[in-house]
C-alpha cells in the first residue's frame, strides 16, 4: 500500500451530505474483477449525461458540465471536500478504488460511514475528520475563482492552506501508523500466527460445533 505522509493538492468541493457508495461508483462497474480502472467512473451518474458501463466506450461519453469535477478548476483535484456521513451504504471497496484511481489521496468531511472509512485506510487514502464549522469554512474558500490548495500533514495531524487556514484533526493511532508506513495489515497480523492458532485450538475443544465443515 502507498504510504501517506504529507500531501498538498487542490480541493474539489462536493457540497452534499450522505453521499452514498452507489453514487461514488455505480453498480455496473462492480462487475470488474480487478482493483484498477474505476477512476473515470467516479461519481459516474453525476459526472456524465449518458449511461455508462464496462462495455461502453468511455471516449464517447458526454460530460455533465454542471458537475463539480468537470469544472476546470477541479479537474486536477486530489483532495475531496464533502459533508457529513460520506460513503454511506454498501461496503464496496470499489468506492475507494474509484477515488484513488481518479487521483484523490484524501477526503475531508465532518463524518464518514464506518465501512467506507475503514476501506480508505487499506488503500492509502486518508479520510480526515474536521468539525462541521471547519468544513464549512473550507467550502467557502474552495468555491473561489482560484481553487483552494491544502496541505495535509498526517504525522502532525494538520490541514493547512498557504493563506493561513489551519485545522487539527484526530486519528486512531493504529490506523495512522499503518498509513504513515504504508504497512500491509495481513503481514502485521501474520506476525501473531501462534496466538491465533492457540486461540483456535482452545475454541475448537470448547465449542466444536463451530468447526463443523461446511
Amino acid at each position: 500500500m502507498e504510504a501517506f505522509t504529507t500531501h498538498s493538492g487542490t480541493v474539489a468541493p462536493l457540497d452534499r451530505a450522505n453521499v452514498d457508495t452507489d453514487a461514488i461508483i455505480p453498480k455496473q462497474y462492480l462487475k470488474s474483477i480487478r482493483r484498477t480502472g474505476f477512476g473515470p467512473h467516479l461519481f459516474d451518474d453525476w459526472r456524465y449525461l449518458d449511461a455508462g458501463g464496462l462495455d461502453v466506450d468511455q471516449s464517447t461519453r458526454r460530460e455533465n458540465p454542471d458537475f463539480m469535477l468537470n469544472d476546470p478548476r477541479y479537474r486536477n483535484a486530489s483532495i475531496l471536500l464533502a459533508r457529513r456521513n460520506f460513503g454511506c451504504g454498501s461496503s464496496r471497496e470499489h468506492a475507494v478504488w474509484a477515488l484513488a484511481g481518479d487521483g484523490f489521496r484524501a477526503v475531508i468531511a465532518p463524518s464518514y460511514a464506518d465501512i467506507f472509512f475503514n476501506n480508505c485506510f487499506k488503500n492509502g487514502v486518508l479520510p480526515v475528520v474536521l468539525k462541521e464549522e471547519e468544513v464549512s469554512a473550507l467550502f467557502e474558500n474552495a468555491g473561489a475563482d482560484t481553487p483552494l490548495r491544502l496541505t495535509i500533514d498526517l504525522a502532525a495531524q494538520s490541514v493547512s492552506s498557504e493563506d493561513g487556514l489551519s485545522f487539527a484533526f484526530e486519528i486512531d493511532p493504529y490506523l495512522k501508523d499503518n498509513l504513515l508506513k504504508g504497512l500491509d495489515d495481513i503481514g502485521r497480523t501474520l506476525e501473531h500466527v501462534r496466538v491465533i492458532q492457540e486461540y483456535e485450538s482452545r475454541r475448537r475443544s470448547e465449542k466444536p460445533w463451530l468447526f463443523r465443515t461446511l
Partner: protein
Amino acid sequence: MSKNTLFDKIWNEHCVREENGTALLYIDRHMVHEVTSPQAFEGLRMAGRDVWRASANLAVPDHNVPTINRLAGIADPVSRAQVEALEKNCADFGIRLFNMGDPRQGIVHIVGPEQGATQPGMTIVCGDSHTSTHGAFGALAFGIGTSEVEHVLATQTLIQSKPKAMRITVDGPVAPGITAKDIVLAIIGEIGTAGGTGYVIEYAGQAIRDLSMEGRMTVCNMTIEAGARAGLIAVDDKTVAYLRGRPYAPEQADWDKAERYWRSLVSDTDAEFDREITLQGHAIRPQVTWGTSPEMVAPVDAVVPEPEQGANSEQVTGWRNALDYMGLAPSTPITDIRIDKVFIGSCTNARIEDLRAAAGIVKGQRLAPTVKLAMVVPGSGLIKQQAEQEGLDQIFRDAGFEWRDAGCSMCLGMNADRLEEGERCASTSNRNFEGRQGKGGRTHLVSPAMAAAAGIHGHFVDIRDIQER
C-alpha cells in the same frame, strides 16, 4: 455481578489479542459472494498465501445472477466472468459453493441462516454491508471491504476497534398490519442514516420479541441503513427453534451444549449502553420512503414534506435535491404517488413470510393496468420451492406478477433487472439511493404487503384499510 451487554459477551469471546485499544477479532464464519471477493483471492495468489480455514467459508453467487431463463446461463459476459471467477476461486481454495444450478443458491444473507450456517454467538462477516442481517440470531455480524475479505481469508481474523453499544427498545405490541419493515424504517426515520455510526445496535422490547426470526432478520438487515455496522437481537426460544434441524446446525452430540451456550447470549439485566432509544410500537404506521435516503420516510397517511421545514440548511438542500430527483411535489399525499413497477425481493424481504404476506394481498386481485412490471424474486431456491408448494407462485402469476429465480435482482440491478430512467418503483429492498435500481430510477421502500397493494392499486395505499375490508 456481571453487567455485560450481549455485544460485550460476543466481543470478549472473540478477542484474540489486544493492543492499544485495537483488537484482533477471531471470525467464525465468512460468507462470500462474487462481487467483492475476486480481488481478495487475487491478492492471496499474488502474496502466495493460502486460505486459513476453508471450512469456515460459504460462498454463493447472488448479485449478478439472472432471475429468468437461468438454464441459458448469464448473457452478460462481464457478469458471467465474475460468477465464473467465484467458481474457480472456490475450487482452487477448497471453499463450499452453492452455484447457480443448486437449489440452495440464493442471496447470501438468506442462505446462511437457512442452512444453519449462521448461529448465535458467532462472529460473521461478508464483503457486503447487509451482513448485519445475521445479527437476528445473536451473532456479531457486519459487512467488510474487499481488503478485509482478503484479511479474513488469510488469517481468520480482523483488526477492529470496539464500537460503542446502543440499545433501541420498541415497546409494546405494534398495531395489526405493521411489519418488521415498518418498524425498522420508523427507527431509521427517528435516528437518521448516520444515527448508528460507530455503534452496534441491540434491538429489544416486546415489538422485537414478537417478531418471527424472518422479521428479526429484516430489522437487523437494515441496521446498516441507520449507519451501524451490526444489529443484534437476544437469543430466545424462537432462535433455537429456527436452528433445530438445519443442515449446518450443530450435530446431535453437540446440540445441548450449543443450546446452553446460546441461551446465555442476552444482555445482563444491569448492562449499560452508551446510548438508549425507545420507540412506542403502537405509534408505528405503515412506512413509505419519499426521498433518496432511507431516513426520508413518512407514514403512508402523511404527505411528502416541504423542504423548507428541514431542520437546517443542509437538510433543506438534501430534501430539495431528493424531491427533484424523485419528481415529487411537496405536500403530495403519499397515497397519491403512482408507481410503474413493483419489486418484491432482496435480503431485506424475500423470505417465505414476506412472500406469504404479499400473496395474501394479491390473492384474487389483478395488477393495476398502469403498472408495467411486478416481479417477485424469492431469496433462495429453497424458498422458491416452498412457496410453490404453498401455491404462492400461482397467486402471483394469476394477478399478473412475474415469478422469478433467486438473487439480489432489482435491489441494485447488477443483473438485467432494473428501472429505466424516470420509472417509479414500490420496492421491498433496502436502499432508495439515486440510481440504485437503475440510472434515473425512483425507489420507494415499503413492506412486502405495501408493495403488493401498490401493485394492485397502481399507487400507494394504506395496508390497514385493505386488511380491514
